[in-house]
């Protein structure tokens, strides 16, 4: 590279790029310069003065974290002046940091419970600090073999430890004011939920007026904990646990697929999750689910042994007995009377085996995953581009000039996707359009927020598309070269005039045109959509509209441009790829395609049944009406209980035979005839495919030793063997992946060995030198492989679509659904981090903080007048499911007529999850769907 420069550090020549700071250049070359406030990925700050160095030909000792490299620079990190400055700095830092044990020769012999013979206060001791042996300050002090004076002379701040908020403990007595946490919250997350307070000697980290994190705008992502060098910020759970070993794997909470390093203690418990600093999927970030939601692995309540129903009661049995019982029961229900429900936390290998088991072993096409409640959002993409998948990667969103998010609560459901968007908006390089009838976290960042009537998203996008066509904003060169069906599409847009669309959606015409212009005129525009407020069949139209908008403006296949469907479920993409859902067979081959069925019939040696796959919702309907008689259910999911899939339990009650694999006793296992104790994600080996189509290796992190569990793959293979089915004799997931790579063309070239080879080799300084945790854990990042990865002609989406050209599809106008006169309004329930202009009450209940807040129903004045309500009136909102909420009315013209808007604070959810006694509360957070409702005065 032309713009490489060479500098000399401690006599060693180091090649680096201009703009790099000296400390990073040294670290990248494996040369250690001590630092406490610097953190890779964040802007240099220069607070701690530990990284001072000497530069030949330059006076003084500049801080190397704020010093850019210069060609020919000669750096001396070990010069006498620099070392003296560092020692003085450390002295000063320790003058306000409890360090009783550092002056003691016995420290290595002491445990936290030992009685100290030196009469050092508990708060003075290092051994009672949660970060003992993980503390960068202590490591740095030891590294410098600092001579410390004894007896102790330091000032203890005597501050109350903040332990009342969910997930976090904050002990500012230990803070060294490096400002990593505030900078992480600001620069990395864009939240600024914490800041520096006061000045000079009193300066500390805090929130406005010392508020609780519940009301300061905290999203509990844990980024501040991950960067804290000392014991000031820690996770409440397993606070004092030290890792015996660490394992890299992939988070199982959502389709972003964050690479995480899990710390495992001596008792094989997962105690901490640290997002991987350099992983391409998450770049060192995580969210409250991934950071704090793993406790269920260690839970005592897990099912320990297989259970078989005898005489109406579930009784413990051996694995062989249970397999035999399940195989015998299932053998009586071969054919379309059998259905299999898989789980989005299943690996690709399990999903492949599951659909093969249903189709080849049981002769039924009825297989789906629980999270797949809105298949329409990928069907329109398949219609147009050929694949049930998005076209983008998460982190290119940081470079998009415009981003449009349609009906998706992504900061909660796919949190890390929101991070690059928030960063770019705050940096002023991106315009964000939010189309959502609810107020969600991203609306605060939006330059334009359109609030259509729930369910009219597709009409609104149609209006934008027509506006783009009418105003000559379409990229006709791209359309002519890369797409077919344009004229037919334009003909369909006839009814989508601005006025008609404005009337149908309740959004004014000028805003629709403005959105269309921002999207079409941006240098690169991304379109993210969740279809949260749409219903049934309109989602397929929505995703066709999305694809058409992207094609019409040439916003696909370029960096920062593309479309991303925001489905739920960690491995939902894997389910589409493996054909473990309604529309397709493995490899995005439509189930309706007779030749595809025949091909797979030949491959598997068993004809594939002709029946259509009813899909998950209808599977339960059919179970209720008796046409499905036996089922296999893999795992638990929120959709089984939140009504998304209808009356699931009613369906299970009507079954003649139910086999469940589950980690915990649940309403499903209560109804099962055979229950297998399932391994959870952290105990499995396999692959997940994330929202970017990146196939990522999932590695065994730990094993709960109390339970005799097996993976769903093992269970399915054992059942198939017991039932005499052929083609299930794999020896481990790697062999399944080999079969997948053979039959799924997109996965060609992917193997376990190759996934283990695809690494980012990051040079780090030797691990005996003090480093931030995230830096210590990085170095061997498994990047996964984005499909398709076999050499082909041209890159997918960039040069070609699956069928060469994109096939633009006709689109229909879906009017508003008819309103039930009993429930004339639609409740648009959103969730925000903080509500501007209104402060909730935080009270302490027991030992925990709680949010107390009056509900505020925001209404259009027209609806308020109809219900005889005015600003500030108390009112009650009842939804069709019978739930009632009380609050006060607020009037706002921006809310479309027919909608009542309501927000809850994210803090309320955090408290709820934290206080939940469910083993796996993160798996039970329901989505925020629009619901019919009525409002009445109280």
């Amino acid at each position, binding site marked *: 590279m032309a713009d490489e420069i060479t500098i000399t550090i401690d006599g060693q020549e180091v090649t680096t790029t201009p703009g790099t700071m000296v400390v990073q250049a040294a670290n990248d070359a494996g040369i250690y310069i001590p630092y406490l406030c610097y953190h890779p990925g964040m802007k240099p700050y220069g607070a701690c003065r530990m990284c001072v160095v000497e530069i030949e030909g330059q006076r003084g000792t500049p801080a190397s974290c704020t010093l850019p490299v210069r060609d020919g620079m000669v750096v001396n990190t070990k010069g006498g002046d620099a070392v003296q400055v560092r020692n003085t700095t450390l002295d000063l830092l320790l003058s306000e940091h409890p360090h009783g044990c550092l002056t003691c020769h016995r420290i290595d012999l002491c445990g936290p419970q030992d009685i100290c013979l030196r009469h050092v206060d508990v708060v003075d001791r290092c051994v009672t600090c949660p970060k003992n042996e993980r503390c960068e300050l202590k490591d740095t002090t030891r590294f410098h073999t600092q001579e410390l004076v004894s007896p102790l002379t330091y000032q203890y701040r005597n501050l109350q430890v903040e332990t009342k908020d969910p997930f976090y403990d904050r002990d500012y007595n230990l803070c060294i004011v490096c400002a990593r946490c505030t900078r992480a919250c*600001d620069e990395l997350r864009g*939240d*600024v*939920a*914490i*800041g*520096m*307070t*006061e*000045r000079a000697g009193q300066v500390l980290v*805090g*929130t*406005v*007026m010392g508020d609780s994190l519940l009301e*300061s*705008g905290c999203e509990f992502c844990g980024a501040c904990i991950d960067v804290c060098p000392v014991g000031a910020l820690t996770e409440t759970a397993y606070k004092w646990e030290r890792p015996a070993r660490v394992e890299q794997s992939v988070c199982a909470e959502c389709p972003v697929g964050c690479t995480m390093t899990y710390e495992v203690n001596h008792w094989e418990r997962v105690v901490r999750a640290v997002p991987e600093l350099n992983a391409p999927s998450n770049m060192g970030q995580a969210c409250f689910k991934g950071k704090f939601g793993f406790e269920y692995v260690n839970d005592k309540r897990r099912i320990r042994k297989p259970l078989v129903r005898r005489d109406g009661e579930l009784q413990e049995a051996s694995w062989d007995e249970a397999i035999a019982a399940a195989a015998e029961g299932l053998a009586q229900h071969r054919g379309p009377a059998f259905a299999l429900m898989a789980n989005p936390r299943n690996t690709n290998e399990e999903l492949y085996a599951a659909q093969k088991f249903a189709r080849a072993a049981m002769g039924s096409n009825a297989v789906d995953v629980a999270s797949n409640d809105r298949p329409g959002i990928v069907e329109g993409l398949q219609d147009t581009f050929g694949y049930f998948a998005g076209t983008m990667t998460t982190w290119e969103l940081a470079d998009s000039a415009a981003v449009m998010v349609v009906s998706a609560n992504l900061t909660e459901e796919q949190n890390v996707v929101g991070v690059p968007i928030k960063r770019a908006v705050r940096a002023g390089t991106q315009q964000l359009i939010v189309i959502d009838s609810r107020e969600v976290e991203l609306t605060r960042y939006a330059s334009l927020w359109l609030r259509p009537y729930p369910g009219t998203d597709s009409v609104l996008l149609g209006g934008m598309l027509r506006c783009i066509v009418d105003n000559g904003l379409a990229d006709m060169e791209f359309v002519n070269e890369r797409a077919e069906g344009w004229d037919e599409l334009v003909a369909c847009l006839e009814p989508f005039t601005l006025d008609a669309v404005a009337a149908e959606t309740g959004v004014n015409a000028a805003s629709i045109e403005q959105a269309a212009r921002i999207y079409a005129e941006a240098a690169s525009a991304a379109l993210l959509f969740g279809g949260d407020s749409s219903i049934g069949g309109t989602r397929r139209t929505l995703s066709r509209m999305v694809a058409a908008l992207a094609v019409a403006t040439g916003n696909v296949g370029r960096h920062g441009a593309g479309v991303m469907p925001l489905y739920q479920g960690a491995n939902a993409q894997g389910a589409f790829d493996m054909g473990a859902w309604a529309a397709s067979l493995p490899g995005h081959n439509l189930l309706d395609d007779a030749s595809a069925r025949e091909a797979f019939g030949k491959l598997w040696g068993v004809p594939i049944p002709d029946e259509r796959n009813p899909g998950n919702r209808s599977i339960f309907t059919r179970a209720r009406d008796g046409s499905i008689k036996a089922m296999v259910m893999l795992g638990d999911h929120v959709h089984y209980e939140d009504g998304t899939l209808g009356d699931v339990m009613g369906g299970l009650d009507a079954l003649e035979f139910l086999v469940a694999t589950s980690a915990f006793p649940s309403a499903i296992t209560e109804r099962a005839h055979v229950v297998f104790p399932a391994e959870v994600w952290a105990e499995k080996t396999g692959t997940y495919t994330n929202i970017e189509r990146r196939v990522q290796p999932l590695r065994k992190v730990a094993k709960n030793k109390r339970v005799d569990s097996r993976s769903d793959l093992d269970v399915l293979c054992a059942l198939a063997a017991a039932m005499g089915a052929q083609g299930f004799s794999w020896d481990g997931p790697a062999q399944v992946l080999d079969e997948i790579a053979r039959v799924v063309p997109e996965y060609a070239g992917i193997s376990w060995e190759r996934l283990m080879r695809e690494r980012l080799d990051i040079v780090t300084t030797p691990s005996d030198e003090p480093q931030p945790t995230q830096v210590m854990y990085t170095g061997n990042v498994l990047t996964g492989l984005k499909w398709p990865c076999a050499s082909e002609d041209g890159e997918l989406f960039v040069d070609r679509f699956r069928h060469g050209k994109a096939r633009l599809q006709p689109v229909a106008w879906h009017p508003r659904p008819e309103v039930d006169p009993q429930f004339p309004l639609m409740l648009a329930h959103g969730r925000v981090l*903080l509500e*501007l*202009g209104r*402060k909730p009450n935080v009270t302490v209940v027991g030992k925990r903080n709680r949010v107390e807040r009056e509900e505020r129903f925001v209404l259009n004045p027209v609806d308020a007048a109809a219900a005889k309500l005015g600003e500030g009136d108390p009112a009650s909102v009842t939804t069709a499911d019978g739930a009632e909420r009380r609050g006060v009315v607020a009037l706002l013209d921006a809310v479309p007529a027919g909608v009542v808007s309501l927000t809850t604070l994210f803090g309320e959810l955090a408290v709820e999850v934290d206080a939940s006694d469910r083993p796996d509360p993160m798996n039970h957070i329901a989505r925020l769907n629009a619901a019919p409702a009525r409002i009445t005065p109280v």
Partner: protein
Amino acid sequence: MLSSLLAAQDELGYLPYEAVDEVSLCTGSSVNEVWAVASFYPNFRFTPPARHSVEICWGPTCHVLGAQPILQGLVSHLGLEGEGDTEDGSISLKYNTCLGVCPHAPAMSFDHELAGRMSLDEAVSRVERIRAADSAGEQQA
């Protein structure tokens, strides 16, 4: 941001949470960012001030000419431990680094009116006059 905070404090005499929130709305920053700025400056206060202000200069000139005895005397006279508000809410005592009238040192200001060549007795009697007027006003109200 700073000018908005100053305007709010001039208007209200202090910065309540609502003012911080309002400034954050206007400037497009988080409340915590506004707080970081506001809490940096000792001139901002976040609780309602007392009804009358008494400032005492402890700049170098006033210090040399005897501000310390007045300051300490006044603090103990008002039953305070330093800067702050009296318990009855009548007087806010503040130290000022320079009132800008060094030729008249030691200087003080009573309700923003300057007074020079102060002695402890004079300071106490002025403070008592303000208090008397204040309690008379209170009773009338």
